[in-house]
C-alpha cells in the first residue's frame, strides 16, 4: 500500500517542479558588436551567478549583425558601437518593431605621446594625417625633430577599426605597429619620444598621466576650435571630446523581465564598476538618470 503512494508523490513532485522550471527558466539572446562582446559577456556572467535560472547568450558578429537579428527577431538585445543607419531604422518601422536605444557605457580614445614631447594639442586632421603617413616628421606639426613612429593595435581590435573608419578615414600607414593591447601601447610610448599611440581612456584611469610618464594630448576638432581633454570628466560628459563614442544597446520592446533586469544590472553601481574595470567610461549622472527613466518606461510599456 505504501509503495503506490510513494510513486504518486514522486510523479506529482516532478510534474510540479517541471512546471516551475518552465515558468521560471528565462533566456535571452544578445548579439552584435565585437568590441562590446567581452564587456557584455563578463557582465552577463556576473548576472547569471546571481540568478541561476536565467540564461543569457552573448554572440558577437559585429554591430550590423546584431541589429539585423533584432530586425529578424532572432535576438532581444543588440550590442552596437554605432547608431542605427537610416536603412535599419526604416526596416524596423516596416516590421513594426519598437526599440529602446540604451547607452550603457562610454568609450573615449585618447592620443598619447612621451612626456617629453613638445606637443600638447592635436587636431583631428593632424591625427588623420599622422596615421595615414602623410606627416612623417614631427617638425611638421611641433618643435620636435625626427620621424614619427605610429603605435596602434592589431587588426582584430575594434578600436583599430573605429579609429580608421571614423577619424583617419583612410588606410593606416603600413609602418603602424600592431601591439597586443592598450597597456602595451602605453608602455611603448613611455619609452619612445618619437611615438604616438591611441588607447581607451579607461586605461588612463587610476594613475595620473605623469606617473605613467606619458602625455595625453588635448584634441581639437578644427584648427581654431577649442581643445578638449579626454581626462576631463566634464568634457566627456558634455560629449565635447571629439573621439568618443557611446557603447549602445538596442532593446526590442516589449522586453522580457530578464532583458530589463539585465540592462538594469548594467546600469547599476556594480555594472558601471565592471565597465570601468573593463577599460571603458561609466555613464555620467545625467545620461545615467535618463537611461534609468527610459528603462522604467519600458517596464510600464510591458505592463
Amino acid at each position, binding site marked *: 500500500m505504501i509503495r503506490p503512494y510513494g510513486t504518486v508523490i514522486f510523479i506529482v513532485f516532478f510534474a510540479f517542479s517541471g512546471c516551475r522550471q518552465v515558468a521560471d527558466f528565462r533566456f535571452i539572446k544578445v548579439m552584435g558588436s565585437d568590441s562590446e562582446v567581452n564587456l557584455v559577456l563578463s557582465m552577463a556572467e556576473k548576472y547569471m551567478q546571481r540568478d541561476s535560472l536565467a540564461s543569457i547568450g552573448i554572440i558577437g558578429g559585429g554591430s550590423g549583425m546584431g541589429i539585423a537579428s533584432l530586425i529578424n527577431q532572432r535576438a532581444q538585445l543588440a550590442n552596437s558601437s554605432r547608431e542605427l543607419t537610416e536603412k535599419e531604422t526604416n526596416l524596423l518601422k516596416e516590421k513594426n518593431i519598437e526599440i529602446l536605444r540604451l547607452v550603457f557605457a562610454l568609450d573615449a580614445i585618447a592620443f598619447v605621446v612621451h612626456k617629453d614631447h613638445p606637443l600638447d594639442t592635436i587636431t583631428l586632421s593632424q591625427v588623420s594625417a599622422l596615421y595615414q603617413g602623410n606627416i612623417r616628421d614631427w617638425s611638421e606639426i611641433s618643435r620636435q625633430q625626427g620621424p614619427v613612429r605610429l603605435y596602434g593595435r592589431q587588426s582584430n581590435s575594434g578600436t583599430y577599426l573605429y579609429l580608421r573608419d571614423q577619424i583617419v578615414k583612410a588606410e593606416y600607414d*603600413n609602418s603602424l*605597429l*600592431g601591439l597586443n593591447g592598450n597597456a602595451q601601447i602605453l608602455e*611603448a610610448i613611455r619609452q*619612445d619620444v618619437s611615438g604616438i599611440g591611441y588607447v581607451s581612456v579607461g586605461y588612463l584611469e587610476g594613475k595620473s598621466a605623469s606617473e605613467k610618464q606619458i602625455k595625453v594630448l588635448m584634441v581639437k576638432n578644427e584648427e581654431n576650435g577649442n581643445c578638449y581633454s579626454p581626462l576631463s570628466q566634464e568634457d566627456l560628459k558634455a560629449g565635447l571630446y571629439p573621439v568618443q563614442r557611446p557603447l549602445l544597446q538596442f532593446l526590442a520592446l516589449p522586453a522580457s523581465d530578464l532583458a530589463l533586469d539585465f540592462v538594469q544590472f548594467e546600469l547599476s553601481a556594480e555594472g558601471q564598476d565592471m565597465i570601468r574595470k573593463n577599460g571603458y567610461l561609466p555613464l555620467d549622472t545625467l545620461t545615467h538618470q535618463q537611461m534609468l527613466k527610459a528603462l522604467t518606461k519600458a517596464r510600464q510599456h510591458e505592463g
Partner: protein
Amino acid sequence: MRDRVNRLMALIIQACALSSVLVLMGIFLMLLINGAMLFKEVSVFDFLTGMTWNPGAFDGPAYGALSLIWSTILVTIGAMLMAIPLGIAMAAFMSEVAPRFWRNLLKPLIELLAGIPSVVLGFIGIELIGPLLQKYLGLSTGFNALNGSILLCLMALPTIISLSEEAIRAVPFSFKEASYGLGAGKWETLIKVTLPACTSGLIASSMLGLGRALGETMTVLMVTGNALQFPHGFYDSVRTLTSTIAIELGEVASGTTHYFALFAVASLLFCLCLIINIAAEAIAAKFRYRQT
C-alpha cells in the same frame, strides 16, 4: 595463441604508425585544399610577390605575402646567426672544456631555459630586451625584427646546445687521443678534430633549432611590432607568417577569401619547414658520407 597475440600487436603498432602519417597527410591536405581556394580570386603570382598584406584594408583587401615571407626569413636568419655559433660554443664548452662543476650547473639551467613558456619570453622581450635595444642601439622603439631574433635565439638555444653536446660527445675518444698524441692542446683538439668530426650532428641540431624558431608564434607576435610594411633590416618592425595567422584567424569568417588566404599562408609555412628539413637531411647525409 601466442602467435595470434604477436600478430595482433604487430597490427596495432602498424595502425598507430600509419595513423600518425595519416594525420600529418590530413593536415597538409586540409591546408593545401583550403589554401588553394584563395587562388580562385588571387593569382599565385600576386600572392607570392605582392608587397602588401592587408585583407581588411580601408580601400579593399590586399593579399601579397612577400613581406610576410621576408619577415619570417629575416627574423629566423637573425636568430640562427646568433644561436648556432653560441649554441655550438656552449655545447663544446660543456662537453669538452668545462670542469664537471660547471657542466653540472649549466645543463639543468639550459633545460630550464627550454621550459620557459613563450609568452614569458615575449614579456621579457618587451620589458627588458626592447628597452635595452632602444638604449644601446639608439633606436626609437624596441619593437623590431632584432628583438624577435634575440628571443628566438633564446628559444632555439636549448635544442641546439643539447643536441650539439650529444653529437660532440659521440666523437670517438680515439680521435682526441690521436690529436693529443701529436702535441695538440684542448682547444686545438676541439676546433681542429672534435668539431669537424661531428659536423653532420651539428648541422642536424642547428636545423632542428631553426625549425623551432620558424614555427614560433607568440614571442614573435609580442615583440616585433607587426607592422605591415616591407622590412628593410633588423631595425624594422616585421610581421611574420605565424603572427599573421595568429592575429587574423580570430576575426575571419570561414569561407571568405581572407579565410582561405590564411590557409594559403599556413601552407606556405608548412612548405618552408619541409624545405628546411629536406635540406638539413641532405646536408647531414653529405657530411656523413665524407666521414665514412
